[in-house]
């Protein structure tokens, strides 16, 4: 009688090959959550757009160009949140070596880079009319640009490492150190005399702006936050699938 080994699951195969333990659980829940968040985000974004164009009054000093503020500020908030997630999940990955944490970190880093790019596009569009120059070398702008470069470095070091596991570790290191830059940017407006407008909401004396402006800003902030988490879930699911493909390719046939 022939002795046959019982069929092994792909996860067991990878483990037998000495590869990283990959969880082959279903990603349906992640996708469903991404869909639900995405629908909420779409609704909120439409609401925010209606508020920006039809509800909020035109700001007296800056005029219509001020309306870009409702895209610029939520993008910055989302980008900072994304980089915070990169740092936390990066530190977690270095500690626990859980590929899921790395998948969250890389997804958040990509989105953070996208939203920082939005900040760096909307900022100069506003500055051209408000300051008369596309770009001034001013602490907050300079540090935001540097932040963008830090996370470009994140992807460079990830791709340039000789083996993928190392790349993940190196990227996590950069994510943790890079996060130290974020409070510096936030505080820079207070520390240095700066051309950049002072915060109107997060400030020690409390919020100071027209209620309609604040309402529009908050709806927009919520919309961007939901959009971010929806995209993060989608991208995370994709990253996990990619990890599985790599694991299966590495496993012996």
């Amino acid at each position, binding site marked *: 009688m022939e002795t046959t080994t019982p069929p092994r699951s792909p996860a067991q195969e990878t483990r037998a090959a000495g590869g990283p333990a990959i969880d082959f659980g279903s990603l349906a829940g992640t996708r469903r959550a991404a869909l639900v968040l995405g629908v909420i985000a779409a609704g909120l974004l439409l609401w925010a757009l209606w508020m920006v164009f039809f509800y909020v009054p035109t700001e007296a000093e800056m005029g219509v160009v001020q309306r870009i503020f409702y895209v610029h500020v939520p993008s910055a908030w989302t980008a900072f949140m994304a980089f915070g997630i990169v740092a936390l999940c990066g530190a977690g990955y*270095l500690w626990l070596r859980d590929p899921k944490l790395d998948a969250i970190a890389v997804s958040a880093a990509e989105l953070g880079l996208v939203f920082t790019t939005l900040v760096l596009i909307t900022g100069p569009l506003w500055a051209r009319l408000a300051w008369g120059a596309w770009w001034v070398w001013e*602490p907050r702008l*300079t*540090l935001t640009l*540097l*932040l963008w*470069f*830090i996370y*470009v*470095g994140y992807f*460079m*070091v990830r791709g*340039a*490492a*000789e083996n993928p596991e*190392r790349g993940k*570790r*190196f990227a*996590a*290191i*950069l994510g*943790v*150190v*890079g996060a*130290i*830059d974020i409070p*510096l940017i936030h505080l820079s407006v207070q520390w240095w005399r700066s051309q950049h407008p002072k915060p109107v909401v997060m400030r020690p004396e409390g919020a100071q702006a027209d209620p309609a402006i604040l309402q529009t800003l908050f709806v927009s902030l919520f919309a961007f936050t939901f959009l971010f988490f929806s995209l993060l879930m989608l991208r995370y699911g994709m990253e996990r699938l990619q990890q599985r493909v790599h694991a299966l390719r590495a496993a012996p046939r």
Partner: protein
Amino acid sequence: MSAVETDEPRVAAAPAEPVPGVAVADDEEEVGAPFLAQIWAVARKDLLLEARSRERLLSMGTFAVLVAVVFAFAVDPSIRARSIAGAMIWVTVLFAGTLGLGRSFALEREAEAITGVLLAPVDRGALFLGKWLANMVIVLAVEALIFPVFALFFTLSFQGSLPALAAVIVLATVGFMALGTLFGAVAANTRLGETLLPILLLPLLSPVVIFACAATQRLLVGRPVSDVVSQLKMLGAFDLVFLFVCAALFGAAVEE
């Protein structure tokens, strides 16, 4: 290399067999040499290598002096050098320092020496601090050359503010070398190697550069020492954060 030779460090690195009945304390205590002695051993190794070859000091020093000459061409003569010298000097220090940092781990990598270093019974934190200390000494030596050269070429005077300037230089170098040692190790282990180092390092160094340039520039135009105290404090704070974070992350950067 014979099998015996390759096996030797492994034996040395293997943790001592736990003797039944004898409580084994932390891993660190098993390693033997005290933490400070481990740091010194690593730093001494790097400094001895440098003292024998002098390749990093010579290349960094020559590069720095050449940059000073290039600045003399590049800067419009109508601009008074004193008004931009702080920035010129620190940009030169950053570029020369980055050049030297690339070699810090390239040597370890070339002959797979890093494997031996990692197998030695040295704590990862001590390995980082040893490397950091050696890099500190080398870069401070280069800075001791750069500052007088710039003072000579651009007729700058640091007299009267020398202790404060020394404090700025040392504090800025502490942070620079903390990040530089960590990312030197990271960059050395990538395909791009030393090319990647400045790309990773320059944006992360922004706090150090900002405060070092501001303080140097103020001292240069004859402002009193009390004007740079806040910059010195910020440099000190970032140094502590960077040293702690980089020492904690270093293990992940060198492990196989």
